[in-house]
């Protein structure tokens, strides 16, 4: 057992959860390596010291409950306003319309093929997040073509809550269907297993109203543009919550419009799936 490996076992050995064989190997390593032994003793002291974190407490502010209620009331007020007026202002917030439902369907078909459901070459359609399982040839919504493969999890980008089932995306079945049956554009995070950085997608609602009018972030821009052009905006950026001044966009062409809104720091392309992809330099 080398030193780095031994360090990986510090916590497990401390907690007594290493199996007998591994524990003996670890102890032999400790006994023959004085420096590692000293490190482990320091680790034991650290674990003991960490119990003092429990003592860290602050007096709960007397107005905490009122503050929570006020924030909630503001959120509800903004929701009502957004539903009533087509061009309602939306305060900058990380919340979203609670009534929206985003249905996610599994990867569907390879390009240019016309295979049947039972064909072994096809990934099955998985219905997640509510709604009936559609037939393969009735796939609805936008088709996001992924270029990295594995198990795909779609999450609400605000709460982190998983939306629908985990879907397996392969080179043969690289598409993920996205449909937003809610009242406003939605912002989701698409995670592929083994891939460090997720992508984010602003998915427009079919008959949605203007959204995120005062949200001065990349996310806010993506939501407004997706709803304006009626097509998802896919963000391949490290931080969608980074600040971005709100721009007035006049172009009718989606690629031109998104480029105009985001600026030179971003590269914008419309792929074969017709979705707008944004990459940050």
């Amino acid at each position: 057992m080398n030193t780095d490996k031994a360090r990986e076992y510090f916590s497990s050995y401390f907690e007594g959860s290493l199996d007998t064989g591994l524990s003996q190997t670890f102890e032999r390593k400790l006994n023959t390596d004085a420096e590692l032994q000293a490190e482990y003793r320091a680790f034991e002291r650290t674990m003991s010291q960490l119990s003092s974190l429990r003592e860290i407490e602050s007096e709960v502010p007397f107005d905490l409950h009122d503050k929570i209620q006020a924030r909630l009331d503001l959120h509800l007020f903004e929701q009502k306003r957004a539903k009533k007026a087509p061009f309602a202002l939306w305060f900058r917030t990380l919340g979203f319309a609670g009534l929206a439902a985003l249905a996610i369907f599994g990867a569907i078909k390879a390009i240019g093929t016309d295979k049947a459901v039972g064909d072994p070459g096809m990934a099955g359609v998985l219905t997640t997040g509510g709604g009936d399982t559609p037939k393969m040839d009735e796939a609805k919504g936008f088709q996001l073509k992924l270029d990295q493969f594995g198990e795909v999890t779609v999450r609400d980008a605000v709460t982190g809550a998983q939306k629908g089932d985990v879907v397996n995306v392969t080179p043969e079945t690289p598409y993920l269907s996205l449909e937003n049956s809610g009242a406003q554009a939605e912002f989701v995070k698409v995670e592929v297993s083994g891939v460090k950085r997720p992508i984010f997608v602003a998915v427009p609602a079919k008959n949605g109203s203007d959204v995120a009018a005062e949200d001065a972030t990349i996310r806010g821009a993506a939501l407004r543009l997706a709803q304006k052009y009626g097509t998802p905006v896919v963000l391949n950026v490290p931080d969608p919550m980074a600040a971005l001044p709100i721009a007035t966009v006049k172009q009718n062409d989606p690629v031109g419009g998104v480029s105009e809104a985001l600026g030179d720091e971003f590269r914008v392309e419309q792929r074969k799936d017709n979705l707008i992809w944004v990459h940050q330099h």
Partner: protein
Amino acid sequence: MLESYPDDRVLIERAQGGNREAFNTLIRKHERRAYQYAYRLTSNPEEASDVVAEAFVRVFSALHNFKGQSAFTTWFYRILTNCFLDIRKREKSRPTMSLEAALQTPDGELERQIEDPSLSPHEESERSERGRSVEAAVEQLPEYQRAMIVMYHAEMMSYEEIADALDLPIGTVKSRLNRARLSLREQLVKDEELFKLG
């Protein structure tokens, strides 16, 4: 005074049916613990309040999605942690302002006054030197590692509960926690050496 509240499942079911009073009860039941968790992450009372308020708004918005497959507290910890991480990201992306710059008002210039969020002398004396050293070392950790350390060592959550809350495999939680502890050990060893020199 010990307050008793209905079971979370009962409150959630009522709240999902549109009962705002049930949701208010849910807030009252969990707000104090949520605040302490947020305070342990932020070390700042104002920021902790913001995290908690934001988290309850997200809970309200997403409650219809909560199916009860995990405990409400586990789900709530996930939302609290995400709020903390998001608020920190927002803070980092905001343009900075010089603390020396004076405010211009119609009556002339005003010096900028910054509230000191640190502990009072009384509170300071209550904490041991070691405790403060550990707290300072934890504050140096990347936010995600800090959340895991606080969950395990302060909130007394199990590995399984943390894995559930952060939606990570349990092996990943264990290895990341081990790494966070090793980082803390390095920092605390340095602090010990500084004490000896001083």
